[in-house]
């Protein structure tokens, strides 16, 4: 039996902390961007204009059906060509994961928007509201409430996805774990610690989302 020894983590806590910061920063930026992209695409998917619907469908099907890792590599190599900026792991990973996850968020928004009865739209029209104002004041508030469980599930997926950025040497938890494993010769402890920290974060996140769901359910 091998001897478990986690003591090096205490000595090199700043390496872990850097990774935690990298994961949180990438997750936050990706989450914000993919929620926005998803909202626009989801609204387009449920609009009455056929070209808008088609464009959004193409986006969703395309980005949802290509592995996140392939998209991360693709953005990593394409962004410098398209924009002329230096290869940047954070920007590439954030862009790729936002488009990938945005496609999943779009489907959540779409089903939420479509779950609102037609009567709400008609009533809003009768009051003289245009499309965007109807969306903003009548349709989205109750729709988003219904979407909360699905949205928080996808948010958890986003946090898990950030580990993929380690493949282009972005300094998040998994990458820092690799670093520790190689310098301390303790792969068992390093990777177990990474897994435990990530799961801890997700348990916190899902605990928070359950509380949020319960609060929203009371106000329904």
């Amino acid at each position, binding site marked *: 039996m091998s001897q478990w020894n986690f003591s090096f983590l205490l000595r090199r806590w700043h390496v872990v902390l850097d990774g935690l910061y990298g994961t949180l920063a990438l997750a936050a930026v990706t989450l914000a961007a993919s929620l926005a992209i998803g909202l626009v695409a989801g609204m387009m998917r449920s609009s009455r204009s056929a070209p808008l619907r088609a464009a959004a469908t193409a986006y969703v099907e395309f980005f949802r*059906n290509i592995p996140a890792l392939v998209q991360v590599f693709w953005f990593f190599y*394409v962004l410098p060509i398209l924009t002329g900026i230096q290869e940047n792991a954070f920007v590439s990973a954030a862009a790729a994961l936002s488009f990938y996850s945005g496609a999943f968020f779009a489907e959540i928004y779409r089903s939420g928007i479509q779950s609102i009865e037609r009567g709400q739209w008609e009533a809003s029209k009768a009051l003289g509201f245009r499309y965007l104002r109807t969306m903003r004041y009548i349709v989205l508030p109750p729709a988003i409430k219904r979407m909360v469980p699905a949205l928080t599930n996808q948010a958890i997926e986003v946090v898990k996805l950030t*580990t993929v950025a380690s493949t282009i040497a972005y300094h998040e938890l998994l990458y820092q774990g690799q670093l520790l494993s190689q310098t301390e010769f303790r792969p068992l402890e390093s990777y177990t610690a990474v897994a435990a920290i990530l799961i801890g974060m997700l348990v916190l996140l899902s605990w928070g989302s359950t509380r949020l769901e319960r609060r929203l359910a009371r106000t329904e």
Partner: protein
Amino acid sequence: MQYQWDFSVVFRHFDFLLQGAVGTIELTGVALAIAMPWGLVLAILRILRIPVLSQLAVAYIDLFRASASLVLIFWFFFAFPVLIHVDLGPFSAAALALGLQAAAYFAEVYRSGIQSIGRGQWDAARALGMRYSPAMLHVILPQAIRRVVPVIFLRIVDLLKTTSLAAAISFDELVHHAQRLASDTFRPVETFTVVALMFFVTIFTFSQLARWLERRLARSD
């Protein structure tokens, strides 16, 4: 800066990418062979409410669903061998990580199928003198599995997508071959564009098949 796209190099080495695709399919197949039966065992353990065993099944399912696939792959490749004193190659490590994780997802799919079958079916089987296992095997499971076939399809497609992560431990699948081709030809953009399209065509076709199956099964139900 004007970039000159050149796909010809990629197509000249297309057979190398296809070799990678074979690796992808093999890994998906072996992971599935682990996940589908093991998931069924987990689902039944969870439903049966046997003290300790059911809780263990729930803990297993929650733990694997909360883990990032890439972390699991690294753990099984670098950490697990230290624990068991046996070296796992990239194929075994990836198949084990992805198979054991997919089992947790499959367990939830089976469970939702089994629980969607009405109590009346259990009562009828009992009235015919069937005990628990024959009732489950001959009455409940055939109906339950039929109902979840489209979801099973989507899970398989998801697994296929996830196998790409095995490239990170240098398993010879499509993405890893793409990485090697990209560094040999200095054409990463073209290579990954082609690979992205290969994945898209395969996965999109399968997802459409799942949707078609869903509509057909809904009609005949």
